[in-house]
Every structure is written in structure tokens, then in C-alpha cells.
């Protein structure tokens, strides 16, 4: 059998197949994440309705069936695509059109290093469920996600509108400030797990401590979790830190002059960064794809190498969805901070706490390593 021989060759197994798997993953990941956006929009609108004792959108239907309002995001998308493309007279055209893309692309890219299931080995071929296994891991996420600030600043400036400008400036200072907290809060976990690569950190979280609590980041460093979740809200420009697009003060901030699909791209970027941030919280603090009390090795021997990844993907999705829901839930609960309060909270409260947290954790790690 010529084909069998070809398949079993070294080159095919170690070069072609892994590359093919990576390509499939690299296509599948953005598709899945992008197609999750309509569901998030639906969750947000329907959830808002129910929280506020309303019904939420339920009008658009096919032959009288409204599918719980799930058709509304599709209708929105059709409307957005069909809209006229307008360019404001004062806009700097090149940057005006470049900005939406610069916001969306980093938001999709940063999902690349997040593992959604443990790698499985089927007939000697290792299938990773992570697009890119980079040693710098989470540092890559920080690097990429801070690129998103450029898009927002560019949008604010290139629109040629004062409100947009204000939104862009607010967004830039807020995101830069909270990125510090975001990074510092994770440093404690890097020290505890001695790793920055997400897949290894998730593997380390599968074990149990004192034989009944999983070694999740939230149990090992709860302070870091609260710091991170606060900073993550600010980083996504979500309530209570949604100052860049504070409708009541600066109309809509940086995306004021954008309409149609360009506006939709800003919305997409917002939801994408919510998904990414929720995925990072899950990965770092809630054991990523780990099923509680069932480490990867045990699960794989129990369910087999074919089914185990799907169980883990399900576990990962459920955890991530919870944090996505937390974003939506908090949006309809908390009022917006004032701008000086946001900055004070960052530099006078969270920053010292983050530093103290690092210092204390470092001392403990140092003492244990002696």
C-alpha cells in the first residue's frame, strides 16, 4: 500500500500533519470566536431586558418564529453591511479607514495562545488545541492587546471631531493605566507557577492542594484575581469604566463618526476583547480547560483521547461564558465612574495593592525555594 507507506513516513508525520493541524486551528479559532459575537450581542440585549424587567428584542422573526430573539444580531449585521459609507469632511481619510481594522485585528490575534483543551496524542501525532505555543505566552497577549489602543486613538483623532478626540484620549490613558494593573496582577501567578506559557499554567492547575481544592489561580492568589478582573473591565472599556464611549458626556466617544460596518467593527472589537479577557481569566484563575477534580491524564484515560478534548472544550466554554456573562451582568448593575475616580482607583488604590501583592508573594516563594 503506497498511501499507507506515505502516511507513515517521518516527513509526513512530523512536518505536514502538524502544519496542517495548525492551519486548521488557525482558521477555526477566529471563526469560532467571531461567530460567538452575535451570541454575545443576544446575551447582552436579552439579558439587559430581563434584568430591567423587560422582554428584550423579540420582534424579528421568520414565519412567525422569533427564535428567542436570536435573529436580531443577524438583522443588525445585514443592516450594517447595507449602510452607506460616509466619510466626515474633516476626517483624515487613510487613518479613518484604517482604525476599525487596527482595533479588530489585535482583538482576534490575542486569542491565539489560549489553550482550549489539553493536547492529545493519536497514533503518534500530537494534536494541540492551541494555535500558537509561544514561550512568552501571556506576554504576547499583553503586547498584542495594547496594540488595540492605537486603533482607538487613531479613530478618535482621525474622525476630526472633538468628542471623538476626547473619547480617544480618555481611552488611551485609561487603557495604558490599567494595563499596568493587568500585568502586575499576573506576575504573582507567573512566580507561583514559574511559567508564562498558558498551556503549562493550565496543566499545573489540574492538580489538587490539600486533596480537595483545585490548584486554581483564584485560590492561590485571590487578591490578584480581584485586581485582574477590575483591570480587565477597564481594559475592555466596559461599564463601570466605559468612559471612552460615555454617551451622556461625549456622545459616543471614539466611534462617534463611524457608521455602518465600520461602527460594527468597533462593536466587534469590544466583544472580542470581552471574549479574550474572559478566556484569560479562565485560563489563569479558574483552571482553563481543566474539569474540576479530574486532571487531564485521568480524564483522557477515562473518556479516551477522542472524547476528552471535547469535554475539556465544553468546560472551558462554560467557564468563559460565565465571565462573559459577568461583564454583561455588571454592565446593567453598576453606574459609570467619574474620570478622576477611574484614575485615582488605578494609581492610588490598585497599583499599591498590586505591588504589595507581588512583594508578599515573592517573599513566600523565596522562602519556600530556600
Amino acid at each position, binding site marked *: 500500500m503506497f498511501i499507507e507507506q506515505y502516511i507513515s513516513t517521518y516527513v509526513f508525520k512530523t512536518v505536514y500533519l502538524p502544519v496542517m493541524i495548525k492551519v486548521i486551528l488557525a482558521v477555526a479559532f477566529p471563526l469560532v470566536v467571531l461567530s460567538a459575537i452575535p451570541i454575545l450581542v443576544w446575551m447582552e440585549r436579552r*439579558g439587559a431586558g*430581563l*434584568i430591567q*424587567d*423587560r422582554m428584550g428584542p423579540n420582534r424579528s422573526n421568520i414565519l412567525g418564529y422569533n427564535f428567542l430573539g436570536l435573529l436580531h444580531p443577524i438583522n443588525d449585521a445585514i443592516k450594517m453591511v447595507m449602510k452607506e459609507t460616509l466619510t466626515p469632511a474633516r476626517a483624515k481619510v487613510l487613518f479613518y479607514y484604517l482604525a476599525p481594522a487596527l482595533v479588530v485585528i489585535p482583538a482576534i490575534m490575542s486569542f491565539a495562545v489560549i489553550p482550549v483543551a489539553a493536547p492529545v496524542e493519536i497514533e503518534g501525532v500530537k494534536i494541540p488545541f492551541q494555535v500558537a505555543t509561544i514561550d512568552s505566552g501571556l506576554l504576547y497577549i499583553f503586547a498584542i492587546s495594547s496594540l488595540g489602543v492605537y486603533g482607538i486613538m487613531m479613530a478618535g483623532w482621525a474622525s476630526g471631531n472633538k468628542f471623538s478626540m476626547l473619547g480617544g484620549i480618555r481611552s488611551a490613558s485609561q487603557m495604558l493605566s490599567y494595563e499596568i494593573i493587568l500585568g502586575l496582577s499576573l506576575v504573582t501567578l507567573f512566580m507561583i507557577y514559574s511559567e508564562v506559557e498558558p498551556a503549562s499554567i493550565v496543566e499545573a492547575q489540574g492538580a489538587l492542594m490539600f486533596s480537595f481544592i483545585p490548584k486554581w489561580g483564584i485560590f492561590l492568589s485571590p487578591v490578584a484575581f*480581584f485586581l485582574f478582573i477590575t483591570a480587565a473591565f477597564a481594559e475592555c472599556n466596559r461599564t463601570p469604566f466605559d468612559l471612552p464611549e460615555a454617551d451622556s458626556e461625549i456622545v459616543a466617544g471614539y466611534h462617534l463618526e463611524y457608521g455602518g460596518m465600520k461602527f460594527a467593527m468597533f462593536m466587534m472589537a469590544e466583544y472580542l476583547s470581552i471574549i479574550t479577557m474572559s478566556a484569560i481569566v479562565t485560563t489563569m484563575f479558574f483552571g482553563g480547560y481543566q474539569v474540576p477534580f479530574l486532571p487531564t491524564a485521568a480524564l483522557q484515560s477515562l473518556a479516551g483521547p477522542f472524547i476528552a478534548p471535547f469535554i475539556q472544550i465544553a468546560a472551558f466554554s462554560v467557564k468563559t461564558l460565565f465571565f462573559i456573562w459577568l461583564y454583561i451582568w*455588571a454592565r446593567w*448593575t*453598576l453606574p459609570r465612574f467619574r474620570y478622576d475616580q477611574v484614575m485615582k482607583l488605578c494609581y492610588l488604590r490598585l497599583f499599591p495593592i498590586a505591588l504589595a501583592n507581588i512583594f508578599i508573594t515573592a517573599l513566600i516563594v523565596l522562602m519556600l525555594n530556600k
Partner: protein
Amino acid sequence: MPKNEYKKIKDRFKDNEFIDKNRPLTFLERLYFVEIIRGLAVTIRHFLYNLFNFSKLPTIEYPEKKREIPAAFRGRHRLTKRPDGSPRCVACFLCATACPANCIHIEAGEYKDGNPNEKYPVQYEIDMLRCVFCGLCVEACPCDAIRMDTGEYDLADYKREDLIFTKEKLMGEYPPVANRGDAFDAAAFNAARSNGEKPSDNAEAGEGK
């Protein structure tokens, strides 16, 4: 507010209940975090309650279902008729005079056939685009000829001309109001108010519900 000053104010209000807005925040409240969780608890309680009691939501899905309107609700006008089908209106212009929006236009005419009512409106138009639905025309009418008891309030249309209601339209049929509340008996109320002064031949006038 300093604590001693606060205590002074509180002592002054000791006997009365007052909402304590100037109370200094406790440590837990100043932490803000506990309060956020309490706020989240409130919203999720609403969410879960509404999720499992979806049919109990107060929303009325408007075009399909309509709010129950009270019996004295001022809807669009109609001109009442005599038993022979002629308008009760005697073209006295009291409604047009009372109208604060100047939306009633009447052209009077005379019965040539010895009808004891002598006058009738040749034209009776109400400009619904101008009408403020105040009901002064109904109150001004000495003959109970104009009423606002049709229960219609969604009068949108595509053309301005269609919203100038002519005599024929005002005297025409109106759909029976299915969702009218019965807390208030308009017929009894009107009967008591008119005190027998109005003409008694109201067999057709569309009394009651």
C-alpha cells in the same frame, strides 16, 4: 461631613424618620467591593425571576395586545346620531368655540323640510393633527352630539388629508372596544351629570358598554 456635626443633625431629627443620606459610610461600604456584590445580587434576582416567570412580565406587546383603557378614556371623537340616522349636532358652534386648538371646522345648514331641529352641520371636520384631546368640545356640547368614547387612540396614517376627519368618518362605525375597563360606568356618570336636561331620545346613542 465631620462625625460630630453629623451626630448633631441626627439628634435634631431623633423623633422623626428621615432618610439617612449623610450617614458616613461604613468600612465595608467604603471597600465598594461588597456593595458591588450586593448590587449584582439584586440584578441577578430580577434576571432569574423574569427568566422563569417570563409570562408575568409587565410588558404589553402593543400591536397585538392593547392596554385596557378606562371607561372615561378620551379617544377619538364620534358624532352621535338620532334614531333616524341624522346627526344630533345642531351646528351651534359651541364646540368649535371651546376648542383650544382650533381644530373643529363646522359649516351650518338649515333643514328645509320643517324638521324641528332647524339646523344641521353640512360639514363637520376635526383636524386630528391639531386636536389635543382635551375633551372641551364634549363638555361644551349641549346636545350630547360629540363624544370621545370610541377608545381609539392610534390614529397614525400615511397622508395628512386622511387625518382630517370628515362628518361621514366621525359618524361612521367604529370597532367595538374589547379592552375597555369596567371600573367606571360612563353611561351612569353621564346620566347623573346631564340631570335630565338633555333630549331623552337617546335610544341609538350608543350608551353603555
